[in-house]
């Protein structure tokens, strides 16, 4: 494979993994927040 292709592949895989981690974390945090708010509301 050529230099530009391997270089692009390296940068792409790096940022796909980082973005995936960010979205997974954000989604889990939002779900936890919602669940906590629901439980708090029900208890009031």
């Amino acid at each position, binding site marked *: *494979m050529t*230099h*530009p292709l*391997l*270089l692009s*592949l*390296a*940068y792409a*895989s*790096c940022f796909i*993994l*980082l973005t995936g*981690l*960010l979205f997974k*974390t*954000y989604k*889990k*945090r939002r779900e*936890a*927040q919602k*669940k*906590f708010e*629901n*439980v*708090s509301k*029900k*208890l009031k």
Partner: protein
Amino acid sequence: MTRFANPKKFYNLSQKLIPILGITTLLFFAIGLYFALFHSPADYQQGESVRMMYIHVPAAWFSTLIFVFMATMSGVAFVWRHPLADLLAQEAALIGAIYTSIALITGSLWGKLAWGAYWVWDARLTSVLILLFLYIAYLALKQSMQDKPIASKMLRLLALIGLLNIPIIKGSVQWWTTLHQPPSIIRSLGISIHMSMLIPLLLMAAAFGLFFLTILLMRTQTRLLNIKTIALLKKQDQLDDPSLAA
């Protein structure tokens, strides 16, 4: 410092820090990438493929640093039995595993260009692969023993035992003859890399570090929220309600 070891204070502080860290991370990535891809020169030997360094090296640095952080937090949890230290160690594991994967993937692609092979059973590459296995083992153990009281102890132990691999990774290129190059950024005689390459490297390293902190705070906050939710449910004996317990 110990003031923020209180979970409530930690939660409130991270609430303020996350947006600031997020924006700073984005800025560092934007500036770092500009310097790495457009501003820094090509290497006289490796040509354009040297640009792999700007993601490979920071990912490799932080893959080991995160494990050291996990072991330190595990040590703190062992000595002072602080639950927040356990949470921080456990939530750092996935980020460490991702960084190690990035270091291995980019290293493998760089290896193809520099050595003509994607993988060689070289001491450095093998010890980093062992680090990835340690992260995977830690995550698997965490997943399989979720709420059991012994889980934290086992995880602390694994992090502390796994720490033995870090000096091996560091020394692998000096103790054995390897295809991987020896330390080439900081040597005993000082910094051995030109400023035009050092600046983008440090900018990208800062971006990786800030990204780690942002994600770590977000993940720890999520765990604290889940703990608070379970505590609320237990308090009201509503754990039997499937709509809430799900």
